[in-house]
């Protein structure tokens, strides 16, 4: 065994260190499309040299100390639910599994805060809170597989974001281990003006500025009432307009989703033609929910919306974790599938949708493939919204998958940036989107990030290649 391996065992104990080949394989990939393809085909997407299992921040500090001494990169790994390759280890790296940091503290019911370890699984956290009448309201599709630390690292958002916000709104305090082994505690406060909010520095940091080991999350009482509505709106643009007007009228249903005509037919069989599908989930006190329902109906009717009742919305709710279509595309020999989440201001959103769809389809055709691009909005703000642009395609051959996929991404992100959008709304950048980040934030933005990285991690041991850097 290597000197590093021995040193890690000395620092953490043998029970916390593994070089078993089965473990190296188990931690070899996240949920990014090409990593999953590689996993299936038996090729290693990335190869760590060792898996370590810290149980607290001091352990993480010891790991980082050894990593610096041995000039070995460290990648924090939660549930592996990331879809942009942020946790794909560079060759020889240390994988720092966060799952043993799984403590859930008592809820401070007066302040409505709960302390949780970074390795706590989302569904288990929600189950724990639900037994006590609470929720974080952070309910992403990765709820069952993701961890709190992963959500923070990627600046995630849940499907009920209109009411509860993104993870940046839910995190009140953080504990972070810095590259030099120092532990930074940023306690929960409702707001601070002590300079830039350091919490925000690490939310979305993708493990490059430090490893988050604990967070204090805001919780809320579970809603008294939840109500679901669905409407067929004649055009996707009309559906987007309904959402904009709802949000700008200060109405805040928990869930607002609008599907284009293609995806609408997947979500609600029976919807036809060019109709889009609007799904709205309202929750809170009964009187507030009643008012929201009426307002939503009124806005939908204004755009000739046809009330489809709660059934399509409930169908989405029941199946929201199921992705058999995407997975079957991905697992076909020449299959490609991805869901790119972008965002822009309202003014640009229709163009963003049209331009990305056109560009992605053109890229597929240029590579002699065939496929379909469609999308939906699932998060809305007063000034804009996100779009999920979903591609399911078949490359000309299995050998052409990587080239075609890359061409689709290139076309998609260039069209996105050109239309005034951002290439990531809530998945982060990882290694998958890193090649296009410079185009979005420009050389000055890159300089700022580079300066930060260098100042906080001069040896570049913290997840190098994610966010900025190498393209694996």
């Amino acid at each position, binding site marked *: 065994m290597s000197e590093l391996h021995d040193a890690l065992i000395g620092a953490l104990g043998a029970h916390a260190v593994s070089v078993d080949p089965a473990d190296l394989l188990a*931690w070899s990939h996240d949920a990014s499309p090409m990593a999953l393809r590689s996993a299936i085909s038996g090729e290693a997407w990335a190869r760590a040299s060792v898996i370590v299992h810290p149980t607290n921040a001091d352990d993480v500090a010891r790991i980082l100390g050894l990593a610096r001494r041995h000039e070995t990169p460290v990648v924090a790994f939660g549930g592996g639910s990331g879809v942009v390759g942020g946790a794909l280890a560079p060759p020889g790296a240390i994988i720092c599994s966060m799952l043993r940091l799984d403590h859930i503290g008592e809820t401070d019911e007066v302040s409505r805060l709960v302390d949780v370890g970074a390795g706590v699984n989302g569904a288990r956290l929600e189950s724990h809170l639900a037994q006590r009448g609470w929720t974080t309201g952070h309910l992403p599709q990765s709820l069952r597989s993701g961890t709190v630390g992963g959500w923070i690292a990627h600046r995630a958002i849940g499907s009920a974001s209109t009411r509860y916000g993104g993870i940046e709104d839910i995190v009140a305090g953080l504990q972070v281990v810095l590259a030099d082994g120092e532990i930074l505690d940023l306690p929960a406060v409702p707001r601070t003006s002590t300079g830039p909010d350091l919490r925000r520095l690490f939310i979305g940091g993708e493990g490059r500025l430090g490893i988050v080991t604990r967070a204090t999350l805001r919780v809320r009482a579970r809603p008294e009432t939840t109500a679901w509505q669905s409407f067929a709106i004649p055009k996707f643009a009309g559906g987007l307009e309904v959402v904009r007007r709802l949000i700008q009228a200060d109405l805040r249903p928990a869930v607002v989703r609008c599907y284009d005509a293609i995806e609408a037919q997947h979500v609600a069989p029976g919807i036809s033609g060019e109709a889009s599908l609007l799904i709205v989930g309202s929750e809170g006190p009964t009187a507030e929910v009643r008012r929201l329902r009426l307002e939503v109906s009124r806005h939908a009717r204004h755009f000739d919306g046809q009330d489809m009742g709660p059934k399509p919305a409930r169908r989405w709710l029941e199946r929201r974790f199921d992705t058999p279509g995407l997975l079957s595309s991905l697992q076909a020999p020449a299959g490609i599938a991805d869901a790119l989440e972008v965002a822009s201001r309202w003014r640009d959103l229709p163009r963003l949708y049209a331009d990305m769809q056109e560009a992605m389809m053109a890229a597929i055709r240029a590579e002699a493939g065939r496929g379909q691009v469609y999308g939906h909005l699932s998060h809305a703000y007063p000034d804009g919204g996100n779009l999920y642009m979903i591609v399911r395609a078949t490359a000309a051959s299995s050998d052409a998958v990587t080239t075609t996929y890359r061409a689709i991404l290139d076309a998609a992100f260039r069209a996105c940036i050109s239309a005034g959008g951002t290439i990531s709304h809530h998945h982060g950048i990882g290694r998958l989107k890193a090649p296009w980040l410079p185009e979005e934030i420009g050389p000055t933005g890159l300089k700022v990030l580079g300066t930060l990285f260098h100042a906080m991690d001069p040896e570049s041991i913290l997840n190098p290649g994610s966010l900025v850097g190498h393209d694996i």
Partner: protein
Amino acid sequence: MPWTQRASSIQVRWLDMTSEPGRGAGWLEDPLRLRNKDDLRNDLQRCAGCHDQCLAMTPEVFATASLRHATSRRSLQILAVMNGSLDLSDGFIDAVYGALGSGLQHEVCVHRGDPAGWPDERTAIRAARRELAVAGRAPDWAQGRLAAWSATGDVYRVGEQEAPRVGSIVVLADAAERALAQESIDGWRTVAAELGATGFLGSGSSGLELFDLGFIDEARTAARDLAARIETLRPRFILTVAPESAAFIQSAWPTLGATKRTRIQPIVAWVARRAARLPLRGPAPEPVAFHDPGVLARDLRDTRSGRTLLRALGLRIVELPDHGRLAPPSGSIHGGDAGPWVQRIAEERRQAARSIGAKLLVTASPFDQRNLMGGSPPMADLGVLLGQGIDGRPGSRRGMSSAGR
């Protein structure tokens, strides 16, 4: 050693069941669906290429804090061994034998509803266990079950068996309940006798544990032996105390070549349909939670019988957060020494019961009974409660012989 290193010389014979003349590779035919190695590989690929939406329903991951046990990543390991790119490492063996195999992952699989079916990790785990067993790499505790059965005909080395009692309806006490839940057998027999079922047969193995641990040939022998013993009693019905035994006999015996001419069902379902005929009186009507045995709820699709009987006892049921077909496993099965981490799983279940104010946690499986024993709230076996509830006479056992117990 890199994981890409080729597997060692240990022979890998995935699902090569052709040693059974005339049966081909059919032991995993419906309802387990897989028919050959290619089917297994396809299912493993579909599972390995998934994004772990069943992770939160895989308690062994959180009890061990190791993704080694995540369903998709376990499938990936099995696939890699099949492909010859992963050796039979200690980690792999732990992943395969540490699997709880509750079927919950299958229930929530993202491929759910796919007309082509969707992967059931239990099939792959069983296949992998067989490979390890054939290679002599099964862990000691699993080998111990095999050794016990080889030496005594009983996988738990339970001593002398009660003599069979002929009857048109026979209560079958399989190995686990005899070893882990004798009081449950007594309770269910009291109830069954009240309903006219007086036959009895004890078993050292229906093949259930052996099959689950990957000792397929031995499971075949055990199943056939028990089938022959059942034949001599010529019953109309067999009622199994453990729902797991009924499910196993129904699904696996035909493909193991064990003749099953008698209708077999779990005793809980049979008694529930006749609950109105029972003179039951329960304990104090405090809120009770029913922990659905996974096999009963998911494989046998029965989430009602246990609750019907609790209500017949006059008990008020409060539901656990995850119940019915989504009930998590309570720990390991077949007495496997998966390690102290399984206690954490049981404690989480007890915590869930406490959170809903349950004063009693009730179940109807010897495995769940053993796992949930100890701690708060106390655990009660449904058969024991029913036996005590007959005429309000604790432990009443009308017409039962106590010989051999």
